[in-house]
């Protein structure tokens, strides 16, 4: 395979291109900031390609980006199947149910200031725990199918969203609540028109943290047992058979899915909390 014999000219070429792109970035940083990260990413890819070819790094250690890209293109059907199994069937339902349940519970608990005071420290502590460890328990409870993955994701996203929502519900100011009172607004009207919108920046903070946790949960759960497809399953078997280009293709899918997922939630945040200073300032 490629990379068996070192080709030093690749290494020097890549380093030269890297330096050139770096110089370009120094200029771009002053005039077109949005392009800088793209050029940086491109430079990393070029350097990676150059190092693997230039030093003749074996494919079982680190395949070159072009090799990964070729494998990716050749196995799109399999990648798509694994993506559907892990993300669409496992992560998304668990994410939706976990976040939904957390917001509902937060609103319910918020009616009792006593419980809220007790819940915040406990929730903060639980959110810091390695909840991912319940993956084997969930697999024994719900079997190898997507249900166990969704359950792990549920448990992982629940607490960060819960504590953020509880914190957010107290974000509306005294003055604003008093204003609602003078309008003779009831509990539900105050909740829907003032407190939930005011809590949105906090809720979205939790939702954004939860996106990564959801993907981690769904993939980890597959290491403990899964039908013969899914990203976690494929990664562990591909590593076992040293099919590293395939592993990197899955990592690319995971990275892409994670970024798009995060991007969608961020875009929703911009639309919902357009009034927040952190979004107004940017325009």
């Amino acid at each position, binding site marked *: 395979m490629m990379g068996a014999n070192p080709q030093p000219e690749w290494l020097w070429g890549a380093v030269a291109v890297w330096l050139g792109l770096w110089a370009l970035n120094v200029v771009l940083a002053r005039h077109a900031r949005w392009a800088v990260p793209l050029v940086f990413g491109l430079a990393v890819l070029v350097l990676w390609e150059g190092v693997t070819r230039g030093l003749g790094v074996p494919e079982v*250690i680190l395949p070159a980006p072009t090799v990964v890209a070729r494998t990716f293109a050749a196995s799109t059907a399999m990648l798509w199947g694994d993506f559907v199994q892990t993300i669409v069937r496992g992560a998304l339902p668990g994410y939706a149910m976990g976040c939904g349940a957390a917001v509902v519970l937060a609103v319910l608990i918020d009616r009792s200031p006593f419980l809220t005071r007790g819940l915040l*420290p406990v929730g903060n502590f639980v959110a810091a*725990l*390695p909840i991912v460890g319940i993956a*084997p328990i969930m*697999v024994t409870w719900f079997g190898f199918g997507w249900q166990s993955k969704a359950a792990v994701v549920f448990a992982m996203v629940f607490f960060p969203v819960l504590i953020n929502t509880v914190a957010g519900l107290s974000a509306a100011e005294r003055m604003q609540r008093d204003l609602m009172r003078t309008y003779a607004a009831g509990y539900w009207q105050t909740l829907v028109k003032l407190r939930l919108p005011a809590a949105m920046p906090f809720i979205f903070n939790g939702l954004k943290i939860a996106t990564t946790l959801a993907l981690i949960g769904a993939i980890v759960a597959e290491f403990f047992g899964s039908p013969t497809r899914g990203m976690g399953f494929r990664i562990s078997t591909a590593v076992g058979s040293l099919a590293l280009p395939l*592993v990197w293709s899955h990592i690319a899918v*995971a990275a892409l899915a994670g*970024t798009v997922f*995060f991007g969608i939630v961020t875009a929703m945040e911009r639309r919902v909390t357009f009034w927040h200073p952190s979004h107004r300032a940017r325009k």
Partner: protein
Amino acid sequence: MRSSVLPVLTVIGLILAIWYVGSVAMNQKWTRDQAARTGAELTFAQIVADTMNQRRPLLPPPHQVASALWDGVTKEPVTSRRSLVYHSWITIEATLAGFSLGLVIGVSMAVGIVYFRVLDASLMPWAVISQTIPIIALAPMIVVLSNSLGLGERLGVENRLVSKAIIAAYLSFFPVLVGMVKGLRSPDSMQTDLLTTYNATGWQSFAKLRLPASMPYLFASLKVAIAAALVGAIVGELPTGAVEGLGARMLVASQFGQPLLMWASLFAAAIVAGLLIIVVGGIERLAARRMGVRP
């Protein structure tokens, strides 16, 4: 602070109550099946009593988990492979190694980002993207990489420790980076202007103003980072065929059908997380006192 003790205890009590109800509900099927096999009739009280003391319960009740945890910690010598203290130490080792690595990477990237505009524009978006990549997808890869490069032998430690530490560092550098960037940028223009009038050099304004100003932010994110590092170390043990450590203990327990051991390891991990956060909090208080913060 005292006013929150009672609410916290209430919430914990509620959780325990739900847990007990849950374990009765989940374990009673096995009890009924056993009874049906022998043709015995059970009263409700007998069923409840049985669900409290099964050897392989689906959901062990809290007291069983507590006693398994107690046995695992106290009944074995700490050097024994059956001691949870031993396995906790293996995981803590990897956590601390990864945490230190993440701390160094996070702080140095933050300094670079605050002082160089190019780094700010090119690194920051990728640091954000790096956290949207589920690290676990990379975990088996990192193990293969560090094994085949023999990183461990070169550093004089076990290969497994290296791969776990890398995963822990990957998860913990980001909170440090974000907190540190915020902290280094926290001095307002009045303060930086004052240093300019003192004719302070760049290094002096870093050491006397920006660095001290960043400490509260740094410690707030260190608490997040150490918890993340522990998650990384445990996750790093799961797919890597590790035989030691809390994650490996969970994996083995799940494969050999020992739910009590699995739950005990899970709670050992929770206790370790709590202890690590407390230690960081203690260091924060010490540092604050040394820097002259008066409560």
